[in-house]
């Protein structure tokens, strides 16, 4: 086992020692002119896409009165907070304060946007200055994301495997092979992005989606939290 594999074995999830990027969502799950919540370890995000298709990841806490920006709305190229309508541009700068329509908002008011990029149908976000790009899951395509209420250990036990050198955990359920990129969520939950071979047919993808649900049930049954409940 080389060093890199060892690191994955220890970490198993994003971010980790080799990759500071976190896969927060699938690109298809953040359509144009929408906003939805996302998570980095210890930090809530508002993931949003402008009408023109530009993706951004803001801190989920509005700098005005702390409202979750993921409850807001996208108009054109800006994200607006639902509480008082403050609007933020793609770079995070506040562009409008409706209570004072004639005022240019001070440049210091900012929604703290994080580094974000899309690759292979996955939205990756990084809280710091990333040193290297996220891994390339060559030959695989994302199918769906799902929330699993289980620890990483339970997932690895259910998969009877550990994550590989790219950070993917593979499992075979009833003969269906799926790969998962894992990211932490708030509380005792994980977000699993399910990928399949790029040449999979439509039926294959449906089967993979079902397999992922079966895998979730297995992992949740193995988790000590659910055993205690």
């Amino acid at each position, binding site marked *: 086992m080389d060093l890199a594999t060892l690191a994955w074995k220890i970490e198993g999830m994003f971010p980790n020692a080799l990759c500071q990027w976190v896969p927060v969502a699938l690109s298809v799950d953040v359509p144009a002119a929408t906003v939805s919540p996302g998570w980095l370890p210890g930090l809530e995000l508002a993931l949003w896409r402008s009408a023109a298709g530009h993706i951004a990841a803001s801190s989920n806490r509005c700098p005005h*009165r*702390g*409202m*979750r920006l993921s409850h807001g709305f996208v108009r054109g190229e800006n994200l607006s907070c639902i509480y008082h*309508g403050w609007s933020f541009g793609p770079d995070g700068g506040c562009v409008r304060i409706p*209570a*004072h329509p004639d005022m240019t908002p001070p440049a210091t008011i900012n929604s703290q946007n994080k580094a974000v990029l899309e690759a292979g149908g996955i939205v990756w976000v990084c809280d710091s200055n990333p040193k290297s790009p996220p891994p390339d899951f060559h030959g695989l395509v994302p199918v769906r994301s799902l929330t699993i209420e289980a620890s990483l250990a339970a997932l690895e036990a259910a998969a009877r495997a550990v994550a590989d050198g790219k950070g993917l955990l593979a499992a075979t359920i009833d003969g269906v092979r799926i790969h998962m990129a894992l990211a932490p969520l708030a509380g005792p939950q994980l977000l699993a992005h399910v990928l399949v071979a790029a040449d999979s047919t439509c039926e294959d993808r449906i089967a993979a989606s079902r397999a992922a649900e079966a895998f979730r049930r297995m992992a949740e049954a193995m988790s000590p939290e659910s055993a205690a409940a």
Partner: protein
Amino acid sequence: MTRQPMIDEWYPVGLVSKLSTTGQDTMLMGQPVHVALGNGGEPLVTAQSRRFPVISRFGHVWTSLGEPKKDLFAIPEAYQPGRRFVDVGVVRVRCSPLRAVENFLDIAHFPFVHTDILGAEPHTEVQRYEVEIREREDEVWATKIHFYQPQAAKSAEGGITTEYMYRVPAPTCSILYKTCPPRPGEWDVITLFVQPLGEELCDVWPWMALFDDTTPMVDLIHFQQLIFLQDRSILENQMPRLLPLDPAMEIPTRADMTSVAYRRWLKRHNYTYGAQLVAQ
């Protein structure tokens, strides 16, 4: 640990009209209390062997866990002849009691949270208004607030510019005086009485004293409940849940002068139950 001065304040714990001899269990600042009707028809607030002071006023039963230094505030306008009292009931909100009051003091959210009722785009501008801490009464007051409203009250037809005054006589209570559509020159009285169950959980008891003889009671209650349910969707999604008193934590503008004065007043009195002093 220093004694939290909010312990000595009065808080609502139930509606007088809903009192029963069996009573109700509730919570005040983390202390379980029982609210019931005594043998002589008087409200009783108790916990095991303790019996707390009680006041019945503004449709509610009020109590205190400490030693109140003054009487519960008065609302003289509420008892002008011809007003109808509306017990709106209770809305439980997973937020700091202080956040609930601050939201009540805020008008800039009307077009976005109470869309087409208390506000509507493009009428979003908040004109300059006046705010002061009245030293003699020791209360926060905001006056001369004007705002365009599509349906200011159940009795309002069509949009009008409404005038507002806000008053904060106690850390978790606020009174709103608002232009009264059927009676120009008079003010409708709408209050927000907040019962702090804990630092991040509260029961909100709105109460109204209105000049409105026509709207059915149930419609008045539903109108106000709708407004508070809209507010709840905001209050349960503010981060942090505690009200930040550190000025570096959140950014106010001129429209937030009432909130700024309220926070300053809380800090001055060390009313910090439900507040966060240092940014985390």
